[in-house]
């Protein structure tokens, strides 16, 4: 996976937001629901994109001193 995932997700979510915007029926709460949909999607996307982007090219790598050789192996990859 690469940095383009951020753009793909953006496109998908923009489509979802647009669809949500259209789908809200007219009524007293139309404005509240539309605003909420767009804000929820943009806030959550923003946070996800930041965390994803920050780990795309990590400048530091996890380091630990409490590792035992028995812990490490193909199957215990799951643990750490």
């Amino acid at each position, binding site marked *: 996976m690469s940095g383009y995932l951020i753009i793909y997700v953006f496109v998908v979510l923009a489509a979802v937001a647009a669809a949500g915007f259209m789908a809200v029926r007219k009524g007293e709460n139309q404005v509240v629901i539309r605003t909420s949909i767009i804000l929820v999607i943009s806030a959550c996307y923003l*946070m996800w994109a930041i965390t994803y982007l920050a780990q795309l090219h990590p400048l530091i790598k996890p380091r630990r001193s409490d590792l035992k050789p028995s812990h490490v192996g193909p199957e215990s990859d799951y643990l750490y």
Partner: protein
Amino acid sequence: MSDQRVSQYPSLLRSEQMSLVQLYVPIDQAHSVVEELAELQRVQFKDLNPDVNPFQRTYVSQIRRCDEAERRLRFLTQQITAQAIPIRPFEDTVALLAGRSGPQALEELDTRLAESEQRVAAMNGSYESLEKRALELEEARQVLRETDVFFSEATSRTQEIRSSFDEPSAPLLGDVEAGAGAGESGFGGGFELEFVAGTIDRARMATFERVLWRVLRGNLYMNYAEIDDSALPVPTSVAGDSAGGEEKKLRKNAFIIFAHGQDLLDKIRKIAESMGATLFPIDSNADKREEKLREVTSRIEDLNSVLYNTNQTRRAELAKIGESISAWWAVVLKEKVVYTTLNLWQWDQGRKTLVAEGWVPTRDIPTVQAALRRASENAGTSVSAILHELRTHKDPPTFHRTNKFTDAFQSIIDAYGVASYQEVNPGLFTVITFPFLFAVMFGDIGHGIVMMLSALTLILIENKFKKGTGNEIFDTFFYGRYIIFLMGLFAIFTGFMYNDIFSLSLHLAKSQFRWPTDFEKGTVVEAIQTAARYPFGIDPAWHGTDNALIFTNSLKMKMSVVIGVIHMSFAICLQVLNHLHFKKPELIWAEFLPQILFMESIFGYLIGCIVYKWSVDWEAVGRNPPNLLNMLIKLFLSPGNVDPDDQLYPGQAGVQVFLLLLALVCVPWMLCTKPYLLYREHQKIVEQGYHGIGSTSNQNGGGLLSGDEGESDGEGHGVVAEEMDEEHEFDMGEHVIHQVIHTIEFCLGCISNTASYLRLWALSLAHAQLSEVLWSMTLDKAFAMEGIAGIIFTFLMFSMWFTLTVAILIVMEGLSAFLHALRLHWVEFNGKFYGGAGTAFTPLTFDGCDEIPEGVL
């Protein structure tokens, strides 16, 4: 204003469009009109008689009658609560009110209340006097008993007294002995010495004794005994005084004083009475005393049964009142609201109508008209009240149509300031941004789930608590249940992003790191980067590593700056909606444009750099990544100089100089354009020849209006004429100073507000660390133990961990994150575009009339 088209549906973006309306209400339906409108809760009446003091208004006598009825109700309610009789709640008594309201109901109720009050007061009076009588009799009985003891003691001590003849107190009794001893044997028959007997307050006993001793120069023999506390009944009037204190008791002493001679006895009586003692005639004859005792006892018994009966009758009366008193309260309180409202209206002598003015949401005018028709039907008249709109330049009140979901969010904004009329309402965006910013500081899946579920419980059982429980803390949480629910949901999401569940981590996909297999135990091992990227949140490989904090620190700090700058830029953009709506498009380039350019050229550039630095693979480039903090500092200190080693991208120096100059240009731009625009506008008005309209033509304008409409209308339109007096003096200096302050505030604010968003970083870090410490101090230790002890220890530690998690991590940390989110909305977000200088719409309502007022119960 009223000719603007009203959109089809109300929205939370702007407050409702309001209309100033005038009502002409025939006097005979005024009452039912007010009732209907109060039920509707859509009209806020203006006071049309501001010069008339409260005692000269039309409906003063009715209000006074309501006050009188309220006083009676208060008296009766207090009597009922004093007797611990249950009061039927309003919901059950509302049926009693069916179809009965208005002046007749009040009158009927008034006579009924007067009757009840009189009866209860009379019963209270007779009960009190009976109680007093019972107390007196009881005291008499005690005195009889105690004196009996004195007499019998005296008899048995005859010999002793005779032998101690020369003691100071002996002579009196010695005389008795001498007199008595001549004829009879002992005191029984020929007791000649006279005495006074009675009771006195125990506290006064010592003084009493001393005074007597001084006055009679020691010529007395006194004996006293304490009456048992429990023997004396405490009258309700006395018991009621000791509010809240310990149970009040009468502490009294019975005394008997022997003295010689009528003069001395009179003196003793006078002194005793002056000190509040009660005297009782006691016979020296033992048989007679016995007889008296019997008589007193039987009278006490009679009295007690009468007391009991009186109390029963009183209780029955009060219980009957208690059945319907909440409905009576409602009638009286509602009538009071009605007449207070009617007092705001103006009486039109010529047309025999009342004139009312008030604000109504334009959208609700048809509903109000329907209510007026209903009122006229109820009043049984064919002519309904007339409503027509007035044109005005007054600032209408602000009315946001909220529902149970948006209400609490709106109140967060209203607590900062009620929106100016029709300005963009931040409450609409708060619905999402508030819980989101909260959750950035509170990111933990587990804590979020607990919070979300508890709020969900409150939402599911909300019908039970509609009325409130009276517990202030619970009611506050209950009021904010939808906020808490959303806060919980977002906390779950941010928990996934931080990969934190009760300080542990989830492993949802393949980690992007791999640990090397060949290393020596105890050395520091660094993970190896693989081609994969963890797709959702922070990679679980970071959990528990030595440098996890360094990584999350950097991530969370940058994240809070990015979120903060976007949040503030959004707030600045909302200005545009205001400028367009208030028909001031020139402010877009005079105010909005320099502000947004200033913001983006410094902080927008910063977040651009942050994102760019993240997106570059520095290892592949083969250079050390530059430090962004130093870059920002150098941007200000030595613009145009970028060290090639610290260069983020080619051409960086030129871009930075341009952006800095752009930001600098924005300052005078902000400073000068708005005052200039105001000045130009003012010049235009002056050129058109409207100068001084406010000061000179006011009387003419008012006179013209009343002249056109006829004499009787003069008062009705007085308000409209008055509104013309609102021309402001133009003061250039004031505008300039205001703009200078505004500009400085904005420019400095941009820097300090961006720094302020770093609280998102600090709090989320603190939250994560605290929950990790709690985990490692409790449950982690317990899991290390084995055997039975391990099970018990785990159980204990789990309960401790769970309690502390809820109390500290969810409730306390939640409150602090809530407060910080509140601040970010009030200062950093609202400060960019929100005036908040409006007045809230307070419609006429019967709210609170259903309950007996606090302080009465």
